[in-house]
């Protein structure tokens, strides 16, 4: 004989029963071995589904995609209106202090990306493997999280303008690296400008001042290293 409570077990697992239904079902479970076993089995199924891992394609799927892309090349000025992505840094810096903190973190990420790409320019080619506590070679090789760790103060005076440093280094850096750096510079400069604006609106706010100072210090560290790599890079 079919136990009608069996049909409610998935809803019970998913928390979709109301309080009264849940109480009735739990009372039933206390006295029904079969439903308890079924409940455990269903929970095992859900757990198995949650534990499935994604796997890379076994064959070179990209080749087919590339052929498809070649059949319909994109042109930025082909009559379509490109919608620029919203700039997260600027958006966050125009608001509250906590949001400014989040933006400062993003700035650190941009700085890290710049340092990491610069390091790639100084390295020995593409395809470097990830090792925890080290840096990555190229953006498309990076996993979700990149950790950069350093604890030594900079030894050389900081140039005043990262753009000027990049201009001087342009001849020796990879064009892709330069492009990413330029994007980072644009975002960093916009963020710093917004931070100044936030301080004008709330002058003397120690939190805002600390965040700005910290961001400037980090930016200067990248500037110094960009110059160093340009001179010493391969």
């Amino acid at each position, binding site marked *: 004989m079919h136990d009608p409570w069996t049909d409610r077990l998935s809803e019970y697992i998913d928390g979709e029963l109301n309080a009264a239904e849940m109480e009735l079902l739990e009372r039933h479970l206390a006295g029904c071995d079969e439903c308890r076993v079924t409940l455990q089995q269903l929970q095992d199924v859900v757990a198995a589904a949650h534990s499935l891992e994604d796997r890379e394609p076994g064959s070179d799927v990209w080749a087919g995609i590339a052929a498809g892309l070649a059949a319909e090349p994109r042109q930025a000025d082909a009559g379509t209106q490109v919608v620029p992505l919203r700039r997260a840094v600027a958006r966050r810096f125009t608001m509250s202090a906590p949001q400014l903190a989040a933006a400062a973190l993003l700035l650190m990420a941009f*700085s890290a990306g710049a340092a990491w790409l610069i390091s790639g320019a100084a390295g020995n080619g593409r395809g470097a493997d990830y090792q925890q506590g080290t840096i990555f070679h190229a953006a498309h090789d990076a996993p979700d999280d990149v950790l950069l760790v350093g604890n030594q103060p900079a030894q050389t005076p900081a140039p005043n303008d990262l753009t000027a440093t990049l201009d001087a280094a342009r001849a020796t850096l990879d064009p892709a690296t330069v492009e990413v750096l330029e994007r980072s510079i644009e975002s960093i400069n916009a963020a710093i400008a917004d931070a100044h604006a936030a301080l004008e609106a709330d002058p003397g706010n120690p939190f805002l001042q600390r965040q700005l100072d910290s961001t400037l210090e980090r930016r200067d560290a990248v500037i110094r290293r960009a110059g160093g790599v340009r001179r010493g890079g391969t």
Partner: protein
Amino acid sequence: MDRTPEREAILGAATLTSVTTTTAELDRIDVDRARAGDAAAFERIYRRHSARIHSLCARMVNPHEADDATQEVFIRAWRKLELFRGDSAFGTWLHRLAVNLLIARRKTETSYQDRFGTDVDGMQPPGRRDRPDLRMDFEAAMRTLPAGAKEIFVLHDVEGYTHEEIGDMLGINSGTSKSQLHRARMSLRQYLQ
């Protein structure tokens, strides 16, 4: 990886203490470039998301169609990049695009009755857990589900969509989604016994 003096100098001199560069930020840069026609940037996007999309395709459709479906998803994404406005992470947008495409693909191949009318309770499990690769067997068990039940099981229990979202995507009510999910789970539990 190489630890050149330049790399070491960068790491040492930087006063950074802890920095995270996320996939979303890399996507943001590469989507912008891909919109301008940079296929290499789009390939980087593909490399970052291929495992998740290909696995979704293999589970929603079947493994031998997964390569074709994955290609279709990324080519569709290439065409539709202008529609991505950055309101959500690109990965979220891409995943939803893939789900919609796979559902549409399945709808053209099977009738509603084929998708939801099969008696999943009467199905035989594909094997027992006497093989070492349990996860592969569980994936095989999922493939024995009728298309509709399989879609709902994958979307709810693997991908985490709600019954309301699934109902919207499949054009069914949430009650149907719940009952199909339960039937799918009841079928799959036989395999795990």
